[in-house]
């Protein structure tokens, strides 16, 4: 049997998906990228191979994506995250017309056409506003674990307005809000609102088209998802492991181009 791997080297996580010739996922792995992206890609690949119960020799082709795609010597080919997220989302949810991907370092909105092709896209500018990193910084400041911040914010009775989109300024805003004894949940909700407004302007510039799928680590944050759904006025498709969608798209491209 032929196998295909997609490796997505992101700023925070390195994700690998292994597909068999029939297009089924038979192994995946998510690890922290850390300082060495080449090593991270090797490690994540080993994990996924072990899960699939196959060896490296069983892989026919490997495609790398993500900002660290250049530092994956194993890869036969490289594609941008934009193409990979579009294809991955389309594969899981075939009615997807719009993908909102919020990762650690950037966020993007992609308009997806027939067959999962990219029709149009936009990305955030060179700053952490509107990215997962923004939330990471704030979570650390508030001493809330990342995976709890979403649910916590959903229990907020009110909401604090965060006026700055700049990560550095918002951080000091949070510090003074904490000092003034504002409930953490309300601050979190305000932070989620800030990120959603930021991404919303990108959604508007591309236009909402068909069904919406969210990918990237921030899709795990229920607080962000709920506010985004409110803005959109519709439900968003989210896979149980939204971080691997880029790697899935990469594996699909490996299978398509070389299978």
């Amino acid at each position, binding site marked *: 049997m032929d196998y295909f791997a997609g490796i997505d080297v992101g700023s925070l996580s390195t994700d690998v998906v292994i597909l068999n010739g029939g297009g089924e996922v038979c192994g995946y792995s998510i690890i922290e990228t850390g300082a060495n992206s080449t090593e991270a890609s090797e490690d994540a690949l080993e994990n996924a191979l072990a899960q699939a119960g196959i060896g490296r020799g069983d892989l026919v082709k490997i495609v790398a994506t993500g*900002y660290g795609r250049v530092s994956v010597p194993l890869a036969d080919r490289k*594609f*941008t*995250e*934009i*193409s990979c997220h579009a294809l991955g989302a389309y594969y899981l949810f075939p009615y997807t017309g719009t993908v909102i991907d919020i990762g650690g370092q*950037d966020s993007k909105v992609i308009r997806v056409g027939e067959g999962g*092709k*990219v*029709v*149009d*896209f*936009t*990305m955030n*500018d*060179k700053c952490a506003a509107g990215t997962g990193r923004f939330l990471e910084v704030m979570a650390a400041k508030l001493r809330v674990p990342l995976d709890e911040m979403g649910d916590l914010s959903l229990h907020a009775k009110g909401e604090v307005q965060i006026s700055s989109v700049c990560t550095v300024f918002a951080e000091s805003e949070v510090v003074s809000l904490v000092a003034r004894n504002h409930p953490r949940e309300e601050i979190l909700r305000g932070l989620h609102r800030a990120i959603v407004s930021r991404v919303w302007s990108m959604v508007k*510039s*591309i*236009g909402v088209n068909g069904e919406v799928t969210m990918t990237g680590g921030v899709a795990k944050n229920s607080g962000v998802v709920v506010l985004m759904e409110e803005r959109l006025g519709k439900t968003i498709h989210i896979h149980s492991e939204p971080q691997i969608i880029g790697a899935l798209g990469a594996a699909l491209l490996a299978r398509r181009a070389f299978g």
Partner: protein
Amino acid sequence: MKDLGAPALMGISKVGKKSRPIKPDPHFGPPLKCTKRLKEIMTRHYMLSRYAEGAKPVAWVTSGAPVEVLRPFGIYTVYPENHGALCGAKKMGPELCAVAEEHGYHQDLCSYARIDLGHYFSGKTPAGKLPKPDLLFASNNICQTVAYWYKALSHYLKIPLILFDTPYNFREITDSDISYMVRQFEEMIPVLEQVSGRQFNYRKLQEYVRIGKDASLTWGEVLATMKSRPAPMTIFDAFGHMVPIVSLRGLPLALEYYRTLLSELRERVSHGVGAIKRERKRLMWDNIAIWYKMRDHSSLFAGQGMNFVTATYTNAWAETTPYMDENRPFESMARAYSLVILNNNLNSRLELMERLIKEYQVDGLVIHSARSCKPYSVGQYDLKRLLMERLEVPSVIIEADITDSRAYSEEQTRTRLEAFFEAMEG
């Protein structure tokens, strides 16, 4: 709206001689023969500038100012925006901008202005030396920035500033707008007479308007040769060859040059010679060039078999020319200069882009969102969406700056461009 200035070409040609010869890129067709001629003309012209100071009145002029009116007075013109582009191409932008910032100018100020002020404070320039001006001549038809920038220069240098104020065209230009501008021309004549010590000669002005118009029309024809497949030049070439239409406008030399260039390009078209060897896709560029990335980007796109065949930027010096009329020089200049792209509403920009996309058979659009140039960059996200809706042209926005490379992120730009290439390949 700026151009790669003549000092730029002069500087670059010097640099080219010093450094090792650049390996020819296999993706390009034969180089344009005219480039050599252009360098000669501009080098000679700028050599003269060294003798101009003291011998001739010198004016520093904005790229969109109605320079024809200075010509009958024999005023020697220098374009700080050209100089800015040169500094950008020579990768001196951050250094000179930092000088202006040390003097209190904000990072958000246009980098052409910061470079010029940085040059004023430090005397640093890659162009040898710029002659000191006796007069400043600005028009806010490109932006309001120039009004304040030139006011600052006028304050530092203690010399007169003539500001040609062009009402923004929200819908349609009115007769009162025109007479407001004509009055300004009338008022500036005595100032020009005083600075130059020459009497105004109406017949000469008519002559310069006629020559300027002919040169612009010929420039328009030069650009139109890129409608052919394959296009005989790329827009990156045009960014260089637009120097005379910007800084020698009204002089017979510019007209003569574009006639030569036009015949070379027509010759290439008739023999099917393309600027790049494998023209698979045709692109449009929006906004001013990213001067410090010209060479990299031109090879990157050529390597993909993609050629830029048109740009809103290069087109700006051809677009409103037909309004020029030697029989009504002031009225016609008022119209031609106030209807330029940056002084015109977004609807007309959208229409212009639609027209260029159709006429040049454009497959994709690269939009430079330039941190410096607010009037050019505002509305680009809407234009992008509307063009996608109406014509289904794929496009990509790259966030950068014209000369200040501190506002440029190599990795982000790469990713955006690669995603654009992937989308274009489908």
